[in-house]
């Protein structure tokens, strides 16, 4: 299906989903991924000249594992891509593997990748492998990854304002994916 103009759709995915996006010249796409059940997801993005892609995801899994693999290939000059994936782990394991490839002679690209993982209990683990494969110098590329528990100072701050421990944790979890939720809400 050739998509022109503005297009919006919500899709329900099955386990082990593979999503392929081919973003044509001058087009822009904004993709949101959200899940509470835990599953395996493969996202492949192919960007043509001047194309822009934004990908946001948050995954809150209770006892179920979430695995996300993203592969972004910049096949056109001046293409841009932003990725932001956040995982909240409670009795679960999460894994995020992202790969950005910029081939030779594809100049003027910009690509950013961010992965944040929250570990809420001792049975949780997080694995992160944000890869960059850059083959020319006219490129700006960054990636960042953080893994850890909720900041104790922040909990202390809220507790000192009279909020009980559990509510404080809930507020901070909410805050953890607030940016993404906000972006989602202005889009809809």
């Amino acid at each position, binding site marked *: 299906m050739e998509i022109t103009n503005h297009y919006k759709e919500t899709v329900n995915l099955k386990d082990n989903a593979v999503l392929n996006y081919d973003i044509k010249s001058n087009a822009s796409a904004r993709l949101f991924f959200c899940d509470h059940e835990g599953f395996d997801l493969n996202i492949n993005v192919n960007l043509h000249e001047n194309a822009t892609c934004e990908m946001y995801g948050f995954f809150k899994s209770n006892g179920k594992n979430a695995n996300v693999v993203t592969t972004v290939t910049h096949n056109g000059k001046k293409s841009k891509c932003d990725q932001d994936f956040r995982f909240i782990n409670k009795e679960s394991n999460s894994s995020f593997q992202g790969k950005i490839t910029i081939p*030779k*002679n594809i*100049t003027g690209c910009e690509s950013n990748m961010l992965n944040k*993982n929250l*570990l*809420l*209990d*001792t049975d*949780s*683990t*997080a*694995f*992160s*492998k*944000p*890869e*960059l*494969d*850059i*083959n*020319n*110098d*006219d*490129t*700006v*590329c*960054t*990636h*960042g*990854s*953080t*893994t*850890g*528990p909720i900041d104790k100072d922040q909990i202390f701050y809220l507790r000192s304002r009279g909020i009980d421990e559990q509510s404080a944790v809930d507020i901070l979890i909410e805050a953890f994916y607030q940016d993404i939720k906000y972006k989602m809400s202005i889009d809809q």
Partner: protein
Amino acid sequence: MPKIKDRKKIENTLAKEYSAGFVTDVESETFPPGINEDVIIRLSKIKKEPKWLLDFRLNSYRIWESMKQPDWSTLDIEPIDYQTISYYSAPKKGPASYDEVDPEIKKDFEKLGIPLGERAKLAGVAVDAVFDSVSVATTYQKELADKGIIFCSFSEAVHNHPELVKKYLGTVIPKSDNYFATLNSAVFSDGTFVYIPKNTRCPLELSTYFRINTANTGQFERTLIVADEGSYVSYLEGCTAPMRDENQLHAANVELVALKDAEIKYSTIQNWYPGDPVTGKGGIYNFVTKRGLCKGANSKITWTQFETGSRLTWKYPSCVLKGDNSVGEFYSVALTNGHQMADTGTKMIHIGKNTKSTIISKGISAGNSTNTYRGLVKVMKSATNSKNFTACDSLMMGNKCSAITIPYIKNENKNSYCNHEATTSKINDDQLFYLRQRGLGEEDATNMLISGFCKQVFQQLPMEFAVEANKLLEVSMEGSVG
């Protein structure tokens, strides 16, 4: 693009040869190429090694025979025929003391600017020089012996301190660790052994220089550093090799053991022959296994490395943070030019409580080279309150080079933090413009920006080395601008 005048200058500097690429004319005894159990037995016999060490070698060889050369790296390795390499080469005249060292070898090390004689005193560095497979001179042994510090070649240590060698050899890098480490365990020829006794601060910088001279030989050295409780040592390592058209293999093992409250600082300046810059022919294959074990509580291991040479580099200096409150640090600048390829990084394995690690890695790729950072941060369930911080930046010069970043971060502990950040870009045009506007030439401005890029790492190097590193950086970068 630079002006024609600048171009010419660049072409001239490009034509400049690798300055350490001379061959020294020394009569040497070299094994015929090939590896089998007899070669290992003969090697062990020449070195008059005890039976336990021969068994260690033979066991390793048997394991190695059943292994396959790994191919997961981003390097293009031409198949290595292990039967065409000679596994032992030594200057014929064995020296009994420094004065008896073959003048040709002395000259060789003088040319490289390595202080062996009186100059060692001025520089305040104790040096162990390894020429092909054999340690030719170790300076300052007496002064160190007064403090109980053992700093000698590996073969000497096997004879004089067998109990220490036996206790620690292979405890950090086991025999079956990986293909190249196992090959090294089977055929290692010489290297350095350092032991710092309890509560001793080593007064000198200890230093080893490795040089491959003979054609078709591989260098397999083994370094073992043991820092006993409460001690401190800073160790430097440097390497060079002559220019040759064929590839030479260098597979070293370095093991560090830091006991309770001990600190080891290990610095490397690696300047093996990088191969022909235009055709990519020749050069050293540098496949090294380096690992440190923070065995006791509050111990600390710091790796600082500056990699400019080698056709191919494949090394991951690692820290196993076993003791509680132990600290691992890794500072690296890896520079690739011409047809060089590097796949380098570190591993930080957190086992003990409150362990901390820092990784600062700077990669610079120019010419047709590929520069890969590959790192692992693993926080085990037992490593409560651990922290890791990683920053790896890549700088690219020219549109024919590649920069690849592959970090692996695995956190299994709820109370531990891992942070990772990486950037890849070229030299900032605004900064370049600013310096050009102040009257600096393009090459000087670029050099200045690159040395600023590397500053965080060079600050960690001991002073003499930092000066050398800066010079080496300028030489290696020459001609890559524009």
